[in-house]
Structure formats: structure tokens, C-alpha cells
């Protein structure tokens, strides 16, 4: 499976450098190495979710308790999380660091990923969630750190879109 181990490691190391200690995740192909790294790291608690919206609540609870967290999800998981994002994170002004694998862009072969791909950025914009693409390994560490900084200062969700050029090697 040509998911980039190198980029996954860069992302995971960046999360560790940001003091992220709780990671919630629901698997998707591009995230498998990242999730395994979180599982294998004794300093990180990986919470395997039944549905991505649970991750909003877990991150909120962690924030109330002073612990940094991150959410790993596919963009369709973001779509499945929207009420939690709006009615919990936005309402209570809770920072969320969302790492969203951005399926359905140029190069996507799976028809079922394409509709969600087209809806992702318009929905992030509609919700007022700052986002950036993560498509260059050289930018991973700095963009993740800056995303967390903005989430913590603005007290709101921020999103990094994990792009094909970063996550998929073929």
C-alpha cells in the first residue's frame, strides 16, 4: 500500500512536538501509518472511534482538563462531525486540531470519494474554520505548529488537509 510512511512519521513527530497527548481517530487508508504510530507511542493515548463526531467531544473534554489533543479523520468524517464542531467546539470556544485526509481531489480513482472531496473546502469556509493544505513534506512541522497556535489563540477548530501528494506515493 503506497501510503507514505515518511510523511506519516513527519506528521506524527510534529504532533508530538506540539505536546499532543490524546489522538482520536477513525481509520482510512491514508491514515493507517499515523494511527499505528499513535498506537505504538506510550506517551500518546489513541482513542479509536465508532464515529468521528465523538472525537469532538473527546478533544473538548481533554481541553477542559488541560491536555492537548488532535483528531485524525477522513474528510467524510469531517462531514459526519459537523454538529459537534458547531454546537460544541464553536459554541464553547474550544480549540480543535483537525487533520483531515483530503480525498476526492485530482487523482482520485474512487467514485465514492469525489462528492465529499468537492464539499470539504466549501463547508470549512461556511463554518469559518481556518484551513490549509498540507502537500509538501518540508512544511509539515511548521504548518502543524502554526495550526495549533491559531486554534489555541482563536479558541476554535482549525483544519489541515492532508493531500494526496503528501500521503500517497505512486
Amino acid at each position, binding site marked *: 500500500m503506497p501510503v507514505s510512511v515518511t510523511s506519516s512519521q513527519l506528521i506524527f513527530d510534529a504532533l508530538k512536538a506540539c505536546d499532543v497527548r490524546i489522538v482520536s481517530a477513525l481509520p482510512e487508508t491514508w491514515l493507517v501509518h499515523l494511527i499505528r504510530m499513535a498506537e505504538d507511542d506510550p506517551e500518546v493515548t489513541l482513542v479509536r472511534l465508532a464515529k468521528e463526531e*465523538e472525537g469532538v467531544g473527546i478533544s473538548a473534554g481533554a481541553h477542559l482538563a488541560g491536555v492537548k489533543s488532535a483528531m485524525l479523520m477522513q474528510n467524510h468524517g469531517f462531514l459526519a462531525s459537523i454538529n459537534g464542531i458547531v*454546537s*460544541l467546539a464553536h459554541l464553547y470556544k474550544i480549540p480543535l486540531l483537525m487533520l483531515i485526509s483530503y480525498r476526492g481531489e485530482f487523482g482520485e480513482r474512487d467514485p465514492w470519494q469525489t462528492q465529499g472531496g468537492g464539499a470539504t473546502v466549501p463547508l470549512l469556509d461556511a463554518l469559518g474554520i481556518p484551513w490549509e493544505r498540507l502537500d509538501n513534506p518540508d512544511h509539515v512541522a511548521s504548518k502543524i505548529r502554526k495550526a495549533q497556535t491559531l486554534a489555541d489563540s482563536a479558541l476554535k477548530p482549525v483544519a489541515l488537509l492532508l493531500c494526496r501528494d503528501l500521503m500517497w506515493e505512486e
Partner: protein
Amino acid sequence: MSTFFPRMNRLELTRAIMGVIDDDVLLVAGIGNAGFDLFTAGDRPGNFYMLGSMGMAIPIALGLALAQPERTVLVMEGEGSVLMNMGGLATVGREAPPNLTIVIWDNAQWQLTGGQPLATESTCDLAAVASACGISETTTPADAPAFTSTVRRAIDSPGPHVILAKIDASPAAGRHHDDPVFLKHRFMQAVGIVPD
């Protein structure tokens, strides 16, 4: 379910919870009546009242319990909200935080919207769901004294615990504060975190 449970009163049971917990126990209340009766039974900074995001109380409590493993966390959530995010019980069962107790208020109706029936009225037993999710410490107390002793045992012994309380449809008497940022800051101070 063939067992007959006389229905208990949510405010009375919430007061019973307040009577047996230590001051440092963190309480999370789901939207609506769970929070309203918690406010009436004993408002305190260590109460986190949810607004708006139905189904999120148990994940919030799970995040708290994982982030503060030395603190006891007790969440009160309505049965409709549990149904909305039933997968959350599976996540709790898998993570199995020993410091988490979940109280489910079940009056078999969406009470705030006029008492429409839901699946726990007839076919769905949320205690069986919780047990099947691997939460072995799951109890359906038969009456208020049994409820009180179950709560006391839950907070004194490793969990996670689920306590399913069959309650009546008495309306909540009070209303908690509804400024989310105020509620958040006050709660974070109770946790011992410098508020953001």
C-alpha cells in the same frame, strides 16, 4: 424486558448523587433536563453543563477521564442522547477508563419536546447495550436506595460503570446558566486548569 421497575424521580436521584460524591468529582450533564436538575440539585464549578451538541456528553466525559486519570468523572445523560451516539458506549467499553461513571436517565420519551416515545419505551434496553459494549459494571437499580448505593459503589471502585435509571416524566424545576464560555471557564478552574 419483563422486570418491572417503579419509576424514580430524576431530581431526587441527582440529589442522591450530590450526597455521595466528594467535592473533587467532575460532573458532566447532557443537554436539557439532566443539566437542569443537576443545577437545582447543587450548582458548583465542577459541573459542566452541555448545551446544544446532543450526544456529546459521554465523549466529553471520556476525554476528561482520559486526560485526568486521577479524578473521578461522572456523566449524566438522557436516553435520547445516548441513542443518538450509541457508538460512544462502544468507545468507552474499549477504552475502559476506570474513573468514569455514566448515569443514563431513561424515562422512555423525548421529554423536552412533549413526551414523544422512543425505543427504550419498548424494545431497547440500554443496560444490555452497555453490557454488550464491554462495560461489565452495568446496573439497573430497582429503586432510589439501590441507585444511591450503586453510585457510591461506582465512584469507589474501578469502572467504567453504567447506571441505567428508570425515571418518571417529572419536569425539571430549574434552569442552569446558559453562557457557554462562562460555564467552560468555571469548570476549567474547578479542574485546576488555567482557563483559556
